[in-house]
């Protein structure tokens, strides 16, 4: 031990040797800082703040490679609930929004955060539950009746409870049925605060019911004994919107790139690509851009 200490003190007392030691430490530091900048993709990137359903259903993994062939930048998708996506975009942490809660979207544009909102595509929400359907929602005439049966039988119901588009829809449906399930939270009404896929997983494990967008349900890999029990009512329509973040609100926003992706998605090739996406043989999203 003493030997090393003596050697080191000797090194430190000779400036040239000390310099060598410092240089080595310095280059290590530089290396670490260099990697901070990340892998510089040639033309930079664009950040899309998006709902979880479009990611969990695999749509972006299919669409974006097609789009990226024609541009010199990459598209980075941050998938969070619609509420959080709108909030992140209002903080200028995104360039383009793809979400599904029309009222909140219009408010976002009205406040000047987004420049304009366009319809992009649609599918529908479905009520999913265990096949043997203990609450008998399968024979209900309306979605309101189905929700009443859930509340009456106190069958486990999984709520996203994350201010996502799906959660906002769910709350609107309860309200339209004249019910408020929130006082029952923690008993039969279970609030996960998680994404669509994770909430489906929870519903399946506790043999409970949940409201899901059709795309995430179809794409979910481990359905076990769960099935769609109620569907097809007009209240369950699920419209996706696309909004570029306003350059007046966020001067640093990558407007040209956001515009390029928007034009492509709303144009013929993007709309065709959306329609062509299939999981387990089924179409998940139906394009309905109005241009």
């Amino acid at each position: 031990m003493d030997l090393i200490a003596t050697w080191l003190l000797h090194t430190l007392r000779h400036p040239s040797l000390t310099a060598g030691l410092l240089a080595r430490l310095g280059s290590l530091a530089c290396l670490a800082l260099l990697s901070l900048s990340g892998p510089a993709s040639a033309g930079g990137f664009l950040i899309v703040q998006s709902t979880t359903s479009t990611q969990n259903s695999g749509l972006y993994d299919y669409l974006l490679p097609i789009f990226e062939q024609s541009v010199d930048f990459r598209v980075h998708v941050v998938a969070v609930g619609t509420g959080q996506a709108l909030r992140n975009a209002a903080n200028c942490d995104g360039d383009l929004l793809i979400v599904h809660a029309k009222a909140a979207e219009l408010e976002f544009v009205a406040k000047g955060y987004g420049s304009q909102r366009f319809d992009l595509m649609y599918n529908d929400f479905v009520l999913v539950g265990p096949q043997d359907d203990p609450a008998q929602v399968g024979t209900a005439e309306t979605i309101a009746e189905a929700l009443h049966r859930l509340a009456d039988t106190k069958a486990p119901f999984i709520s996203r409870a994350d201010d996502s588009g799906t959660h906002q829809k769910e709350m609107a449906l309860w309200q339209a049925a004249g019910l408020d399930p929130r006082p029952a939270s923690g008993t039969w009404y279970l609030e996960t605060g998680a994404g669509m896929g994770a909430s489906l997983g929870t519903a399946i494990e506790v043999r409970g019911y949940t409201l899901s967008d059709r795309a995430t349900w179809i794409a979910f890999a481990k359905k076990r004994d769960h099935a769609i029990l109620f569907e097809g009512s007009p209240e369950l329509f699920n419209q996706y919107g696309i909004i570029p973040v306003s350059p007046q609100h966020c001067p640093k926003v990558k407007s040209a790139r956001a515009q390029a992706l928007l034009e492509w998605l709303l144009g013929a090739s993007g709309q065709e690509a959306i329609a062509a996406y299939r999981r387990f043989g089924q179409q998940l999203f139906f394009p309905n851009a109005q241009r």
Partner: protein
Amino acid sequence: MNEIGQALSIAIDLIRKGDPDLLEIVGLSLRVSLSALVLACLIGYPVGAMLATLRFPGRGLLLIFMNTLMGLPPVVAGLLVYLVLSRAGPLGVLELLYTPGAMIIAQTLLITPIVAALTHQVIEDLYHEYRDLLKSMRANPWQRLVTLLWDARFSLLTAALAGFGRALAEVGAVMIVGGNINHYTRVMTSAITLSTAKGEFEFALALGIILFALALLVNAALLSLRAQFTRWSHHHA
């Protein structure tokens, strides 16, 4: 039981075939966590050593603070870094949010206290042994620091590996500041979270196996290094 067995065999297949997505994710995990480790050591070693060898007002408070930060929950580290790096935040101009750089910063914040606190313990013990020798050699504080750090290098490796393990295993911070972007900020833990949410347990399990294997490897390397060092110091004693 059958389901676990099936998932396991598909997972092992993915690893054996060297699935490109899998390799990319493992590569990014290592790059981010190793970078965070280098930064954490560059900060944590000198800070820990200074706290062990120098006496100054506020030192006790600093020690308590540092030891508390060792238990900082990853999501809190993630939240703090998010707020600072958001374009609406004080360092928004750097445009680091949702990049590997943001993940490195969050993990550095998370593991620097661990490296510093463990370094402090190691150096303090060593300093008791060396104090008289260093005094007799009239070493200045800077020389003392470097000497102690150098002599404790094998023990300090343990501190580094403890930090590395925590960085590699955390998901809360990288999820928030990285955004789990495919081919860009998706690391092992955030990919496991997403795959589980999609009900794709095979891919999640494959990553879990790799994560576990890496932990084994790191610990095996550590033990063999220590064994070698013990032999080496006996030889030179």
